[in-house]
């Protein structure tokens, strides 16, 4: 079942081309950009803020507000990742690796422009994919289950070993993240682990205060500390705004890989854009043309991350709109928006309310165009952040971190968590552990743990069953290759040079 373009335009355009819907789309885009770009405020929060407003709107108005906010928020996370080394949303974690070094070299505007263009490319690719193949792909994706989720998460964990200049410190950070992920009620036995009798910890440590603590507050403390000791300052140079065309073109192969990976992972129910960006970055670091320079501030690193996370947005909508299965926290909010309007996702929506489906497609498309326009226009304003003196900038960012930690659950407890992890993030930087492996361990830990245990329960304890399904077999094999190929290559090189040193023996056979 494919949906015709003409049908989408015919049914959807009249609904979308309504001044109120268009105005809301602009409001949604700006909110998404703002909230996404603010360290501490995530795109989930943008949606949570906006959804009560949609309560009395028409479905088109509601999605006109929400979908552009989702698309723009996913891009917006890159802005603070590049400027401040603090990812604005979880999906932008990988963008810090090359974005921030570029900003330090005075290429902040260039880096933002590049993420904007390639976020747009990823988003549009996934919008086309969503509109064309949603129902077919959803039926394939629903067959994926526990073992595939496990394999995806293990692949993500393997990427951690590539992230740090020091393998040991990278793995140490990842292991700390996995340890933190064990907090909360055990899904299989109901036993409380490290909760100290607090209801707030029953569901585990909240992602938002931990992430903005380690990344945000930790970075601020680190900067203040470095500044007081060395008198260091953030770079004040801004550089050119728009990326040069040849640089944009150079990244096309990277973008194609990122789109494939981002969409593939995004469509698996319950994964979402963050893991897609991680996997894409890891793949680029393994097979990309500039793999050796990744992490030092190369455009390919930004493109691998930003294209993939936006490619994941449209893909994550697929299982939500066709089967009512949300891919991440944001699509869960979108599902709620459908329910609020008495619309039930599924094939019935595609047959009975094709007007709603068509307007969702068009609005998602529109959202991507809007953030491209506002992102490129706004880039020169965003980079002015770097001109702000640190004694003014850092307290503002710190205040945003506190607001973000509190507002997600209106919880003072989470503010304590923020402070704790801010200090923790500062201390691990002191010993050379970077925050990204830790946060990835924290995100992926529960997915790996519960899907491994669940997979073993449903298959009667069979480990080989994890290799019995094509997708999980492929991903697990890729993981093994990723982990052991450096070792094998080194062994092969050593063998090769050993053979060359004894030419007589090598040449005789």
């Amino acid at each position, binding site marked *: 079942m494919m949906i015709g373009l003409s049908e989408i335009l015919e049914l959807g355009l009249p609904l979308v081309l309504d001044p109120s819907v268009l105005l809301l789309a602009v409001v949604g885009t700006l909110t998404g950009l703002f909230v996404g770009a603010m360290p501490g405020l995530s795109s989930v929060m943008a949606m949570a803020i906006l959804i009560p407003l949609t309560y009395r709107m028409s479905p088109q108005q509601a999605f006109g507000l929400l979908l552009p906010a989702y698309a723009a928020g996913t891009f917006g996370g890159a802005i603070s990742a590049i400027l401040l080394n603090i990812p604005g949303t979880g999906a932008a974690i990988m963008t810090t690796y090359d974005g921030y070094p570029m900003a330090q070299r005075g290429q902040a505007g260039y880096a933002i422009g590049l993420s904007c263009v390639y976020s747009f490319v990823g988003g549009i690719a996934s919008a086309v994919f969503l509109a064309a193949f949603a129902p077919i792909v959803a039926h394939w994706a629903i067959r994926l289950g526990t073992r595939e989720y496990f394999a995806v998460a293990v692949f993500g964990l393997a990427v951690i070993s590539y992230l740090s200049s020091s393998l040991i410190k990278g793995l140490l950070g990842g292991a700390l993240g996995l340890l933190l992920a064990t907090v909360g009620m055990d899904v299989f036995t*109901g036993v409380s682990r490290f909760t100290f009798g607090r209801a707030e910890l029953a569901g585990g440590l909240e992602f938002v205060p931990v992430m903005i603590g380690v990344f945000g507050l930790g970075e601020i403390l680190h900067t203040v500390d470095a500044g007081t000791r060395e008198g260091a300052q953030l770079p004040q140079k801004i550089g050119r705004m728009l990326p040069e065309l040849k640089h944009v073109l150079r990244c096309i192969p990277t973008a194609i890989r990122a789109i494939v990976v981002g969409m593939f992972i995004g469509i698996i129910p319950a994964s979402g854009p963050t893991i897609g960006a991680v996997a894409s970055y890891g793949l680029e670091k393994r097979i990309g043309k500039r793999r050796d320079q990744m992490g030092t501030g190369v455009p390919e690193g930004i493109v691998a991350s930003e294209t993939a996370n936006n490619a994941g947005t449209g893909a994550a909508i697929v299982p939500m709109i*066709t089967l009512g*299965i949300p891919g991440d926290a944001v699509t869960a909010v979108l599902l709620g928006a459908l329910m609020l309007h008495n619309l039930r996702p599924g094939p019935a929506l595609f047959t009975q309310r094709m007007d709603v489906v068509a307007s969702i497609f068009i609005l998602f498309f529109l959202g991507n165009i809007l953030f491209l326009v506002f992102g490129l226009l706004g880039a020169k304003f965003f980079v002015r952040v770097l001109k702000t003196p640190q004694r003014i900038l850092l307290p503002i960012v710190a205040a945003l971190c506190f607001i973000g930690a509190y507002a997600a659950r209106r919880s003072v407890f989470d503010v304590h968590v923020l402070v704790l992890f801010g200090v923790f993030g500062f201390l691990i930087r002191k010993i050379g552990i970077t925050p990204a492996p830790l946060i990835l361990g924290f995100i992926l830990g529960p997915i790996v743990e519960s899907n491994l245990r669940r997979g073993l329960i*449903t298959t009667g304890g069979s480990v080989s069953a994890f290799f019995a399904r094509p997708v999980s077999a492929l991903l697990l094999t890729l993981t093994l290759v990723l982990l052991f190929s450096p070792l094998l290559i080194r062994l092969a090189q050593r063998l090769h040079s050993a053979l060359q040193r004894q030419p007589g023996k090598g040449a005789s056979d």
Partner: protein
Amino acid sequence: MKKLIVLSIALAVLLSANVWSRGEPEPEVAFPTREIEIYVGFAAGGGTDVLARRIAEGMEPELGVPVIIDNRPGAGGLVAVQQVVNARPNGYTLAIILGNQFLQKHFKQADAWMDPLTEVTLIGVFNRDAWGIAVPVDAPYDTFSEFVDYARNNPGLPVGSGPPGTLYYWTWQAVVAHTGIDLTIVPYEGTALSLSAAAGEEVVAAGAGPGEAASLMDAGLVKMIGVAAEERVSVFPDIPTFREQGFDIVIGPWRGLVGPAGLPDTVRDRLANALENAYNSQRFQDFIREQGHGPFFRGPEDGMGFFREEDTFFFDLMDAQGQAR
């Protein structure tokens, strides 16, 4: 000496303030005079959130003040209720309570809980959903009784549930206790995940409300073999109840409105009246019918009877498994 006098005057003022603030009864002003907050222990956009927003919307015109939903997610709704337990009992801070809170009270493994029988004032229960069983569409059974027979011949079948300590885990335990079949209960982090596991045939069945499974039913991926309700769910008239099939199992998630313990009767009754009228409004009734939610109402008095029944039910269920506190 002078200092001593000043000090004793100061102390007297302090003490009198204390007596005055305690002794004076709350002035008899009409309730409510300002906005009322309802804490919802789940994120915006979820099933409980949407229901709470609909009921709050209906209460607004009744009370003549804004009724605001405040999402404070955590621990299956417990975080929100705990905050209300510690709030001032003046009727301006309320929370949505669920059956989960009774489970947490009795579940041996849970280390955070409150007692809904003593620590809150019940205003009313305004919804009860039917729990049901969804199976892959080409499963070799179409009804619950066929499923039970199949499970008797194939012990240890994996079924998808929520984590222990949540309602959707103990609903399966109730099925096991009632029928004596041997199932492997596989916990999933949410109903969406366990349902998609059933659709993908990773498990032979998943526990879910018909409203939750509706999209997958429409897609032709799952079918429902029964619901644990007293009557068939009106928008899904083809799904038989367990009771019709000879199994007396009635169980499902419900939502109630509570305030802190010690809420004055006048305030409680005013709120209960508004809640009942909001529940009976055409708009709310249409909403729950269309979404496949179950109708159910208990006011403050008979609601306490319902609370005690739930309390005993979950204690007995857990006690039989050696899991009760």
